[in-house]
C-alpha cells in the first residue's frame, strides 16, 4: 500500500486498559490500510453508525417506497382532503388540501432532494478535486493565479447569483444540479490543494520520484489515496449543505416545478397550511431534519475516524 510509509502501524493504543485482547475485536496486525482502520474506528462510533443505518433506511424508503404505496405522487383521493395522519385507511401520514397522499409525496420529494444532493455534490467534487489537485501539483504562479480566482469567487454572494440563475433560466432540475454544484466546489478545491501541497513534499513521494515513477502514477497511486480522507469528510458535510440549498430555493418558489416535488417544496406548502394542517409542515420537515442530522453526525464520525491526529 502506498501509505505504509507514513501511517503508524496499529499498535492497539486505543484499546481500553485491562482488556488486552477482547474477543469481539481482534487486534489487527501491523500495516492495516487506512481505509480499513477508518472503517473500524467508525464502527466504534455508535452515533455515526446509527446515522448511517438511518440514512440508508431513508434512502431505501425513497427509492422503493413509492412502488409499494397505494397512492401515487399526484394521485388525488376524492374522498380524503386534508386528512390528518392516521393508521386507519391508507393515508398513513395524511393528505394535503388536494387529497394527495403526503407519505407518497414526501418519499417522491425525497428522491428529488437526495438526487440533487448526490449529483450536485458529485459536480462539486469533480470540479473541486481537479482544480485543487492541479493548482497544488503545478504550484508556483499557476497555483497563485488559480487560488486568487477562488478567493474572488469566495466573496461572490452565490446564493443570490443562484437565485438570479433560477429566475433567468426557469426552474429546471438539471440547472439546479449544475448551479449548486458550481457553488460548492470552492472549499473542496482549497482542501485538495492544501493536501496536494503537503503531500508533494513528503518522503514517499520523493522516493517514488527517485525510483522513476511517472507523474501520473504518483498522482493516482500516492497523492489521491492520501488526500482522500479529508475529501470524504468534506463530501459528507457538503451533502447536507446542498440539500439545504435546494430546499431553500424550493421554499422561495424557485426550486423544482410541479408535478415534481422536493422536501423544500413540501415544507413551503406546509408552512402555508400550518394552522389548519400542521402535519403538512411537520412530515417533510422531520424527513429533512433527520437526513441533515444524520449526515452531520456521519460527517463528524468520519472526521474523527480519518483524522490521523486523533489516532
Amino acid at each position, binding site marked *: 500500500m502506498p501509505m505504509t510509509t507514513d501511517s503508524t502501524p496499529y499498535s492497539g493504543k486505543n484499546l481500553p486498559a485491562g482488556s488486552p485482547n477482547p474477543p469481539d475485536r481482534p487486534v489487527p496486525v501491523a500495516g492495516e490500510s487506512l481505509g480499513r482502520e477508518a472503517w473500524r474506528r467508525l464502527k466504534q462510533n455508535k452515533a455515526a453508525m446509527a446515522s448511517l443505518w438511518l440514512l440508508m433506511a431513508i434512502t431505501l424508503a425513497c427509492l422503493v417506497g413509492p412502488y409499494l404505496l397505494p397512492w401515487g405522487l399526484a394521485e388525488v383521493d376524492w374522498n380524503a382532503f386534508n386528512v390528518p395522519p392516521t393508521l386507519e385507511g391508507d393515508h398513513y401520514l395524511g393528505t394535503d388540501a388536494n387529497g394527495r397522499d403526503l407519505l407518497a409525496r414526501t418519499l417522491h420529494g425525497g428522491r428529488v432532494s437526495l438526487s440533487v444532493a448526490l449529483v450536485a455534490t458529485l459536480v462539486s467534487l469533480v470540479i473541486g478535486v481537479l482544480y485543487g489537485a492541479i493548482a497544488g501539483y503545478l504550484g508556483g504562479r499557476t497555483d497563485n493565479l488559480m487560488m486568487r480566482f477562488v*478567493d*474572488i469567487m469566495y*466573496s*461572490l*454572494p452565490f*446564493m*443570490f*447569483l443562484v*437565485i*438570479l*440563475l*433560477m*429566475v*433567468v*433560466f*426557469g426552474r429546471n432540475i438539471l440547472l439546479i444540479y449544475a448551479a449548486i454544484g458550481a457553488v460548492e466546489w470552492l472549499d473542496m478545491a482549497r482542501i485538495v490543494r492544501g493536501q496536494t501541497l503537503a503531500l508533494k513534499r513528503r518522503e514517499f513521494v520523493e522516493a517514488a520520484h527517485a525510483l522513476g515513477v511517472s507523474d501520473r502514477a504518483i498522482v493516482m497511486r500516492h497523492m489521491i489515496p492520501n488526500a482522500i480522507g479529508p475529501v470524504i469528510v468534506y463530501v459528507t458535510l457538503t451533502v*447536507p449543505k446542498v440539500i*439545504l440549498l435546494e*430546499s*431553500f430555493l424550493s*421554499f*422561495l*418558489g*424557485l426550486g423544482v416545478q410541479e408535478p415534481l416535488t422536493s422536501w*423544500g417544496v413540501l*415544507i*413551503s406548502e*406546509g*408552512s402555508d397550511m*400550518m*394552522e389548519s394542517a*400542521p402535519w403538512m*409542515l411537520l412530515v417533510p*420537515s422531520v424527513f*429533512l*431534519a*433527520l437526513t*441533515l*442530522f444524520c449526515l*452531520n*453526525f456521519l460527517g463528524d464520525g468520519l472526521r474523527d475516524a480519518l483524522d490521523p491526529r486523533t489516532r
Partner: protein
Amino acid sequence: MLTYTLKRLLMAIPTLWIVITLSFFLMRIAPGGPFDGERKLPPEIEANLMAAYHLDESLPMQYLRYMGNLLQGDFGPSFKYKDFSVTELIAQGFPVSLELGFWAILLALLIGLPLGVIAAIRRNSAVDYAVMGTALAGIAVPNFVIAPILALVFGVLLAWLPAGGWNGGAWQNMVLPVIALAIQQIAYLARMMRASMIEVLGSHFIRTARAKGLSETKVILHHALRPALLPVLSYLGPAIAGIITGSVVIEQIFGIPGIGRYFVQAALNRDYTLVMGTVVFYGALIVLLNLVVDLLYSALDPQIRYDD
C-alpha cells in the same frame, strides 16, 4: 496594515465588477421581458416603454449606461413597483433588514459563544452533550422550518407575540424573526467556539497558567478566551453572509418589509432591475463586511502581520 487594507479594497473591485457584470448579462439573456403581462401591450406602447427604459439600445451601450448610473448610486427604475426607483426601494428596505440582522448577529454571539465555552470547559459531561446535541439540531433544522413553527406556537397558539408584520419596528414584532435568524448561527458559533476552546485549553501556556496556581476562572477568562476567540472571529464573515441570506426567507415568512422580501417578490415577478439591484447591493455589502472582519481579525491576532 494600511497596505493590506488597500490591497483588500483593490481586490474587492474585481469581485464587485464580476457580480455586476454577471447579473447584468444574466438578466439580459433571460427569456421574456419585464413588460410581458397578462395583456399583450400594443407594439407602439411597448416600443415607447423600451425606449423610455433604454432597452432599445445595443447591449454594450446598455451595460455602459448601467455601470455609469451605478457609480452614481442609481440602480435604475423598478419595472414592477411603478414610480419607485430601485435605489428608493433599497433605501426603504435596508434599514429594516439591517436592524433585523444586527440583533440576530448580536443574539448569536451573546448566546453561541458562552455556550461553546461552557461545553468546552465541561467537556464530555452531560452539559456538553446537551449543548452539542442542541447545536446539531439547530444546524439540521433549517430556519424556514423553525420560523413557521415559531410563528405557529408563539404567534398563533400562545398568542404571546405577533406572528408577522413589522409594525414600524416594534420589539414585539422583532423577537420571533430575530430568534429564527439567529438559531442556526448560534449553533455554528457554539460548535466552533467549543472546538477552538478545547484546542486552546490543551496548549502549554494554559498548563503553565494552571501550574502557577491561577484559579480556573482566571485561566479561562484571562488566558484561554482571547486566543480561542480568534478562529471563531474569522467565521463572522460567513455568519454575516448567512444571516443576510437567511433574512430573505425570514422576511418572507414574517412579512417584514426588508430588502429580502423585495428580492423574493422581484425574483418571482421578474422585476429585473430590482433583482439586479439587490444582488449588487448585497454583493457589495458582503464583500465589505468580509473586509471589515478580516481587518478586525488581523488587529486582534498578534501572530498575523500583513506587511507584504
